Structures are given as structure tokens and as C-alpha cells.
């Protein structure tokens, strides 16, 4: 579910959405009360559907298109606990097919105590271990990949990574909706706003 107040941009969109939601209701109710009620019901249904919906992943350009754009296709991957998961690996390998790829994996370092199952886990060590495993797996699959640690806030980590890495495409891997704090933060939508290129969302579990 989208959090309408996750950040300023989401709140601004929420404001615009409220105007779009209420304007037809007011106009319809001025015409006839029953029409206003009908439009209210319809608009409420549309609003509930929109709020409950996660942003659909954008279609990545075809391999041929991507290869034709530039010689090297730079893919920025943001993931935490799902970084070394098979689904993310599969997507990256598919995206790297037919192009000279440069894949940068970014793993945010969670602060100590962030892991509910084991608060004693050191965030830096855990992130490093995941990065090493993911880079090794991708290289074994023939993908040119490297990794770096990022800020604990995924939005900050993404912004910082984009400053030093001119990405052509972003891949964000999260847990499923309901289990992912990043989705609560609407990180995929935020990335879509901040980045002009394709943003692919992978549910890594």
C-alpha cells in the first residue's frame, strides 16, 4: 500500500489527488444530489484501488534498444536482505544479456539493532557478506559486477550512488509488500521520480 505522506513529493501528489478526487464529486452534486453520491462512490473506489496498488514495474527497453543506446549499459542495483537472492540474480543476468554491462550493487548498511531477530548483528559485516556473495555469484554467471556499501536510508543510498555512477537503469529489490519497510517508504516510486530512466522492481522472496 502506498503511504501518501511517505515524503514531500508523495504528500504533494496526495494533495493533487485530493483535488482530482473531490472536484468531480462537487460538480456532480451541484447537478443533482444523487449524481453526487454516485460519483462519490465511484471516485472512492478508484481512490482505494490506487492507494492499495504498488507502482507497476516499468518495462525495461529491449536488449537491442539498450545496446544501441550506448556501448556500456550501467545498471544500479539497490538491495539489502534480498541482494544475494536467486530472483534478483536472475533479473540482473537477463538485463545484462547482449550488452556490455557495468553493474553496481549497493547495499545499505543498517544500524546496529535494526535486525529484530538478532539485534547484535553488525550491519556493516552483514552488508559486506551479502555484497561479496552477490558479486561472486554474478561474476560466476559472466556479469561484470561490483559492490559498495550505502547509507542505511535507501533513498539516501540511492541518491549518493547516482552521484558517482551514471546509471542507465535502476533495479530495486525488496521483500514482498507487507514485509518490506522500503515499500512502506515507497522507495520504488521515489526512485521513479528522481531518475529519468527505467526502474525495475524485483520482489526478492
Amino acid at each position, binding site marked *: 500500500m502506498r503511504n501518501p505522506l511517505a515524503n514531500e513529493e508523495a504528500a504533494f501528489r496526495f494533495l493533487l489527488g485530493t483535488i482530482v478526487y473531490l472536484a468531480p464529486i462537487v460538480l456532480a452534486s451541484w447537478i443533482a444530489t444523487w449524481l453526487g453520491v454516485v460519483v462519490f462512490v465511484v471516485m472512492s473506489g478508484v481512490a482505494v484501488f490506487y492507494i492499495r496498488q504498488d507502482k507497476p514495474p516499468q518495462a525495461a527497453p529491449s536488449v537491442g534498444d539498450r545496446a544501441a543506446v550506448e556501448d556500456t549499459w550501467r545498471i544500479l542495483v539497490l538491495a539489502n536482505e534480498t541482494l544475494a537472492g536467486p530472483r534478483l540474480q536472475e533479473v540482473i543476468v537477463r538485463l545484462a544479456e547482449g550488452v556490455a554491462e557495468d553493474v553496481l550493487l549497493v547495499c545499505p548498511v543498517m544500524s546496529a539493532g535494526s535486525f529484530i531477530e538478532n539485534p547484535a548483528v553488525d550491519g556493516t559485516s552483514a552488508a559486506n557478506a551479502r555484497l561479496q556473495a552477490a558479486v561472486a555469484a554474478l561474476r560466476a554467471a559472466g556479469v561484470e559486477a561490483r559492490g559498495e556499501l550505502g547509507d542505511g536510508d535507501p533513498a539516501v543510498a540511492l541518491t549518493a550512488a547516482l552521484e558517482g555512477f551514471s546509471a542507465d537503469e535502476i533495479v530495486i529489490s525488496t521483500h514482498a509488500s507487507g514485509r518490506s*519497510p522500503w515499500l512502506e517508504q515507497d522507495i520504488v516510486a521515489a526512485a521513479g521520480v528522481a531518475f529519468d530512466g527505467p526502474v525495475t522492481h524485483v520482489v526478492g522472496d
Partner: protein
Amino acid sequence: MTAHAEAAVHGHDHHGPPIANKSSRIEAVVLGMFMFIGTEAMLFGSFFAAYFFVRVVNPDASTITPEKWAVWPPAPFEFPVFVAGINTCILVTSSFTMHWALQSIKRNNRRGLQAGLVLTILMGTAFLLTQFIEYAHVGFNTSDGAFASVFFGLTGLHGAHVLVGLILLTIAALRAFRGHYSPEHHHGVELPGIYWHFVDVMWIVVYVTVYLL
């Protein structure tokens, strides 16, 4: 064993209360925002419940011409719909300038941030002043019936939120003029911005339900 000695035995050099444990399932910031939305929804919800009760369920609560209950507000009173509409435009425009301010600092445009915040504060102040003038000329008071009470209650509650928002924005603006904030660190602007948009949303709902419908 004293607390200090116990800490030494366990190899800790930490003073003060223990570090708060954070769940990995939900971020503290997100949880806090959901709790804030919940409390605000209940607060405004209670006022809206009173409003709809007076208007729909128990129109006779109005001491003025109860036989004309279908007319809102009860005759002979009228809400200044046009002035409130202008005020709504001012407040919605202030959300655009707020958004512009934040987009500016994200692009390292400090002038834009400062200008956006100042314009937002000016428009928020204009909104509040207009509302005070509206109160002075509206032609009824809380003693004129329940409809007047809920009108002043709802709009006054919202006005109080605008005042809080203006205080937050003023603090953000002062910090902006002192050189605070950067493209990477602008939480001090982002959070008042979220609050300001939320206040605008609540006003639109108040305006539509009380003045227009």
C-alpha cells in the same frame, strides 16, 4: 553492584539509557508518520462527526429556523463561499511554492529554497488573516446554534494546524537563511513540507464539505 560497575563487568562503556531497539520490519519514521496520520484522522474525524450530526442527523439542534433544516447554513445566515474559495486558492498555491522550495534545495538552488519558503509563509499568513477577517464579518457567532459551533470548531481546528505549520516553516526558513540544508540533508524542510501538504488536504476537505456541499 552499581550500574557503572555492572557496565564495566559486561564490557560496556555506554552511559545513559540503553539504545532503543529498532525493528527491521517497519522503519521508526514510517511508524511515526502512520501514528500521526491516525491521531489527526481521529481528531478531524470527531469534528466532522459533529458536523454531519448537526447537519444531517439532528438539524433541529440549530436554534435558527429549524423548519428550514435542508438549507445549509440555516437561513438567514450564509457562508462567505467566494472569499473562502480565494483563500483555498491561496493555500493550494502555497503548496506549490513549498514543493518548489524542496525541489530547489534538492538541485542545490539555495535561493529557490529561501524564496519558496518565504512565499509559502506569506501565503499561509494571508490565509490565516483572511480567515480572521472572515470570522469578524461572517454575521453569526457560536451562540447562534450548533451549526455555528461546528463551523468555528472545524475551521478553527484547521486554522490552528496552519499556525503550527507556519511556525515550522518559519524555523525552516530561518535555518535556510543561515546556510543550513543541502541536496543530501534537507529533512528540516521535508518534514514541514509533508505537514503543510497535509494541512492543505484537510482544508480542501473542510472547504468542500462545509462551504460547497
